């Protein structure tokens, strides 16, 4: 079972790395980091701030775009090319296929983030000539960004298990935007009353909470991140991704592929 999942994951990884769009996006992310250096030089005393803000934002946005645009094709492309039938005709279960695809894309994104992070740290070194202790928080912010990718990848996979690529992209992107305002959404829910409050609170808890995973601004200001937040965010990303993957498996198990 594990080897079958690993095999699908490594194939997904290879396929994604071969994708030219992926290279372009990495190139753009590195370009953004280079731009950060330029902006940093004209921003007196806030070079580091600008580099961290711009660099991490680029890593996050480019990763999100990669996650959504690769994720939406993971299932549909296999059906379209009829390769899915070849895979499923072997002793591979449908859930193994979904889980393998998830790990494949998650791995791709982790590698991408690692490469882009190198770009950010090189830019940071360029503007400040040495690393500081507080730069360690940038690593935590990057870790949170990867957690965001895990959630969005699982969600994209869930949508692509029953919807067209275009609609899956729209759904995933919308959830990303809504999730970025999740804390405000819970604030809105708290201001309502009666049945509306229950409904709004339920909806606010159902959407992924990307706002707690976005600590770019605070690490740019060298603010420390609580250890408990790292723990809770890690657990949250894990259970949310599990929830979305379970949903994707449930749908895909029942899908008529004939």
């Amino acid at each position, binding site marked *: 079972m594990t080897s079958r999942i690993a095999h699908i994951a490594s194939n997904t990884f290879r396929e994604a790395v071969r994708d030219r769009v992926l290279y372009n996006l990495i190139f753009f992310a590195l370009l953004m980091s280079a731009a950060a250096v330029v902006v940093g030089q004209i921003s007196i005393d806030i070079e580091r701030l600008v580099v961290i803000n711009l660099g991490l934002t680029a890593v996050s946005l480019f990763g999100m775009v990669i996650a959504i645009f690769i994720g939406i094709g993971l299932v549909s492309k296999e059906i379209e090319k009829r390769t899915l039938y070849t895979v499923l005709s072997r002793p591979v279960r449908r859930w193994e296929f979904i889980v393998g695809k998830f790990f494949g894309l998650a791995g791709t994104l982790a590698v991408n983030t690692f490469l882009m992070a190198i770009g950010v740290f090189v830019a940071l070194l360029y503007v400040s000539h040495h690393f500081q202790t507080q730069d360690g928080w940038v690593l935590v912010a990057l870790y949170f960004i990867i957690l965001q990718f895990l959630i969005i990848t699982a969600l994209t996979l869930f949508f692509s298990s029953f919807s067209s690529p275009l609609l899956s992209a729209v759904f995933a992107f919308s959830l990303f935007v809504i999730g970025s305002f999740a804390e405000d959404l819970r604030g809105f829910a708290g201001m309502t009353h009666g049945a509306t409050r229950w409904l709004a609170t339920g909806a606010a808890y159902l959407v992924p*909470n990307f706002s707690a995973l976005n600590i770019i*601004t605070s690490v740019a200001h060298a603010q420390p991140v609580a250890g408990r937040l790292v723990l809770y965010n890690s657990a949250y990303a894990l259970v*949310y991704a599990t929830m979305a993957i379970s949903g994707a498996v449930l749908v895909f*198990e029942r899908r008529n592929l004939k």
Partner: protein
Amino acid sequence: MSGSRRVTVICCVLLATSLIASVLLLRRVDQVRTGATLEEVLYISSPRALKALSLGYSGLLADIYWTRAVQYYGNKHHEGARRFDLLAPLLEITTALDPQLLVAYEYGANFLAPKPPNGAGMPERAIALAEFGIRNNPDAWQLYYNAGFIQYMELRDYAAAADVFARGARVPNAHPFLILLAGKMAEHAGDRQMARMMWSTSYQTTKDIDVRANAAAHLRALQVDEDVTNLEALTARYQQQNGRFPASFSELEAAGMLRAVPRDPLGQTYTLMPDGSVNLRTPNDFPFIEKGMPADYVPPPSPKILPSD
């Protein structure tokens, strides 16, 4: 159980457990991140920059900032805070993003101007906020009322209050009270009478539940102050006539000075002290009172504002 069925059952269980776990974890995350959103808000403190960044969706962003302002004040007030440093910038950003959001100006007049712990103690910024609102909504009489309210309540500037009420009275469909308030300001009417008039207008015209509850609390406090003043005047008169203070309100009733045992605005009877003074039984329920407090009374750090209805 077939393989497919087993997968379905496992997935359903995973789905349900993950959903519950995610909600519980989010609540934990919220506990760790109390106020984090608000702290981050003001990394971009320029309303103009935020408006540019909103890419035309400034209305939605204004709603978000408005929610944050209300939550910020509510949480801080609940904690009994003495400083509300972010309230002014949050309201300024909100109104810069949506200058037509009248409720934000009203909120500013009620909670930005008063001294802590009832507000941020920034009457000048509250006035500036109200004047910004007037410039952007010259036909909204409520904004003139808000500005005059701060001038009178916090700054005791009768001339400025009279001027702004008079300006508001000239607005089409203005509340008829404005012209009355302008006149009363000009003649420096008795403070308690004027305050009651102002808070009543706030209570009747607001749509915001916090503002309404605040106005109701002030009206109750004014009633208590008036009751206690009158009752203590009666006990003093009784002492002059009988050489001693009354032992109970029944003695005042028997002497024909009272029709019934007096009750506070929440229905509790007042307490008559041996020295003729009159106290409330539950002073914590009456923030803003100036009279009727027991001698050793220490008000709670966070004023208790009861719901208005």
